């Protein structure tokens, strides 16, 4: 089994945006998808998941609406709003840039300094 990874602050929101960008999902669905994409390596702390969902909805990046899940249970489905899509794009770009820079620095050999 692979080692669980702890999420840096603020990244959970980005992951939720990414998850719903592929299509409307209810809360548990988002959780499952994040787990699934990450290969079950992410540990999401109790309470922090819904805090992030609420905050995103409040900011208008995702929109919630009641509907029925695959086993016909009433559930609240979230989808990405236009503003949310813009945000996801910006965040993704920022993250990739930062990751590249950090990785570049960390990968530098001692004699290159």
């Amino acid at each position, binding site marked *: 089994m692979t080692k669980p990874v702890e999420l840096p602050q603020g990244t959970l929101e980005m992951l939720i945006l990414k998850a719903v960008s592929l299509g409307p999902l*209810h*809360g*548990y669905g988002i*959780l499952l998808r994040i787990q699934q994409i990450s290969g079950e390596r992410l540990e999401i702390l*109790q*309470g922090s*998941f*819904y*805090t*992030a969902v*609420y*905050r995103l909805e*409040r900011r208008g990046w995702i929109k919630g609406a009641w509907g029925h*899940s695959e086993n016909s*249970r*009433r*559930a*609240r489905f979230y989808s990405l709003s236009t503003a949310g899509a813009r945000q996801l794009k910006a965040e993704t770009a920022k993250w990739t840039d930062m990751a590249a820079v950090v990785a570049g620095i960390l990968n530098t050999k001692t004699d290159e300094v």
Partner: protein
Amino acid sequence: MNLLPSIRRLWHSIAPRTSSDVEEEFLSTLDAYQEDLVRKGYPDEEARRKARIDLGQVASQNEIYRAAAGLRLFDELGGDIRYGLRTLRKNLLFSAVAILSLALGIGANTAMFSLLDQVVLRLLPVSHPEQLVIVRETGNHYGNSFGADTISWPMFEDLRDNNRVFSGMFCRFPATVNMGYGARAAQIPAELVSGSYFPILGVGAALGRTIAPDDDAVPDSQSVVVLSYSFWRSYFDSDRTIVGRTVALNGHGMTVIGVAQSGFDGVELGVPAKVFVPIMMKTEMTPHSDGLKDRRRRLSWVTAYGRLKSGVSVEQAQLSLQPLLHGILEVEAQQPEFTRNTTAQDRELFLRNRVELLSGSENGLRSYMRRPLWLLVALTGAVLLLACANLANLLLARATARERELAVRLAIGAGRARIVRQLLVESLLLAGAGTILGLALAFLAARILLRIYLPADAAAEFVVSPIPDGRVLAFVVGLMFLTSLVFGLVPAFRGSRTEITLALKDRSSAVSAGSISLRRMMVGVQVALSLLLLFGAGLFVRTLRNLESLGPGFPTDHLLTFRVDPSLNGYSDEQTKSFYQRLDVNLKNMPGVASVGFSVMPILKGIAWQNAIVGKDFEGAPIEEQPVLNHVGPGYFATLGIPILAGRDFAAQDVGPRNWRHDTYAVINENFARQYFPGRNPIGQRFGLVDEMVPVSPQDIEVIGVIPDRKYRDLRETPPAQAYFPYFEDAHFRFMNIYLRTQADPHLIENELRERMRHFDPHVPIVGLQAVDEQIGFSLRTERLVASLSAVFGGLATLLAAIGLYGVLAYTVTRRTREFGLRVALGALQRDVVWLVMRDGLILIAAGLAVGVPLAFALSTLVRSQIFGLRPHDPVTLVSSTVALALVACLAGLIPALRASRVDPLQSLRNE
């Protein structure tokens, strides 16, 4: 704007999702997860447990949601408010005292101030009212006058045509007229106005047009009338076709040309004019005095108004008008009507008369109410101050008592800011509740005050609103919030600085030394203020008692009065005379009536007919005040219960149409005899009247009787010199005041009397039917209001001061329990301990009194004019109010002192 959607939007932005919505979503997630777990092989119960461990509790979900949505501040404030309410409810007595004292302070102040504002401070509802001034002449008058602010018609013309300071002048004269319209008749107040009245005031017409200068050019020519808006609505039912119709005023047909703009009821507050008539119609409107055609220059009857040119100050205008007036006076002083009855000395005095400009919004009601209203505003201001001191004291006391609670909250991690916020929320809750209650009180109080202050018919139409205007409201509410903030903040900051360890160890004495000295100061201030209020209350209550118990000097119970004026119905002199003669007989035969007296002038109504007299014995002697004169019927003195001291009363044969020829008789009072016939038997003495139209020579009037000195105009006066003539001696007959001494309660025959008068002459309305006791009661309404309010406030102030003192001493006792225990253990007696505590209280009381007594002395001279029958520094009132206050305060102090003396030494020391 549609309010509902915006409110919904606002609400949505505060709380977009309901708690059940949030919980339902969370539950569905929980269930889905749980099912997955079961599918993976977890037993049911295990799956349930794990789901909740991994995802969280349903109950806390809403809180998480609100925190995430940024609603935490609201939630915490809500919590603060709930906590605050709970605390206030727990200390019900504290909250009640605080809220009530605030409500009282706010209520009394708002009510009094809005009354003062609307009655005394507010200007007329006309354009630029601050430019309007009343032009009056001050000094010795020498002639006939309809009031202190009036001048003669010729003088008005001279001023109007020659001044350089006014952009325009107008004048007015108030009159009472009988109006007939269709089958209805009513007696209404009318305003006779010059043609420039409406244009200069800037008052327009709601309907038709107002009186224009053209309407007022030629005497008797323009029979037109303008209705006031409120009268048009109430009496004519807002009939828009009224313009062009005819109404009868004093039997004279007048065409309605318009309705004045809404809200304008003439220039005299308290006596709203219902119709406006050109002053050129004076002869028709006041059938028995014709100031217009009567060109006498010393007959003052119009009130003259001017509008100052922009940039001209009142002082400049006064300076500019003075030489103009002087010129007019020099002309007047040479006319025979003046020279005939005056000496060179009189002339010199007369020429010193000055022009005085009053605010155009000034009027009789204002000048009458100004002092008492300011006095009451000052009283209520003191009450507000006391309420604030009391609130501060209470909050300080409570902050001290709560030091432990605050320390506990600090110890378990509450932030200091959070605690300050909590305490502030509590004091704002108090202030808010007090303010709301206070405004409700103010609304009620203002209505009641208006009812007391104005005659019933004026109050019904008087446009004083009990709702305070925005400025007053903002001021009062702002003041209260400021108070609660200041006095809430001090203890709040002190509380948040509490040294946790000290407070928890119950060594609070080490912590709050500062707050107790502040509280002692508050108590001192309360004692001083209470003394002021009690002393004032004593003065005013005793003034009222003096006025009531002294009375006018004759019995006023079982005495009924009313007024009639047949001449307004167009009755000739002969008809009027016959009316009165028949009425006299008719009323004497009425069952329940013991006797009937006729008098032209009413008594105890603040008015009098005054005229200069002449006689060979007192020629050239300086006279301080003209004597008061009256025409009365035989039986008048008997009806009022005034004995004849010497000579005789009028008899039926003295009554006859002699029109001021020889052998007119007079009954005088002792004061008259003292002033004009000193050291002589007044019976048989003769005098005459100074009158330019019908002079009565010094030989014409013979004194036939002497009555004792009785009050005439009001209860406060020293009886003036009075002379009475038989009532048929007047050249004309107009109104008559009729007095009936009844055998039973006068109220019982009021209705019967009305009915009888209707049978006697259905066309002549009777006006002002009233028991004289009631009339006197009404005339003392200001005194009664001041006395009762100051008594209530004084009592309340004492109570508040007592509570304050009790609070401080009780706190001291709690703090020093250990010390007292130790003292008792070491052999101190109970009374030693009592004395220890009482000494503390006595020092506070003494300090308060030391400030209060000189202050009371200084302030009481300011209300000298409101006091009757005692001096402003009345020692009895001062001593009694001081003693009463000291006693109550000592009692309040005794309670904690006795408690201290009962301290069980073992108990108190074990507490350590």
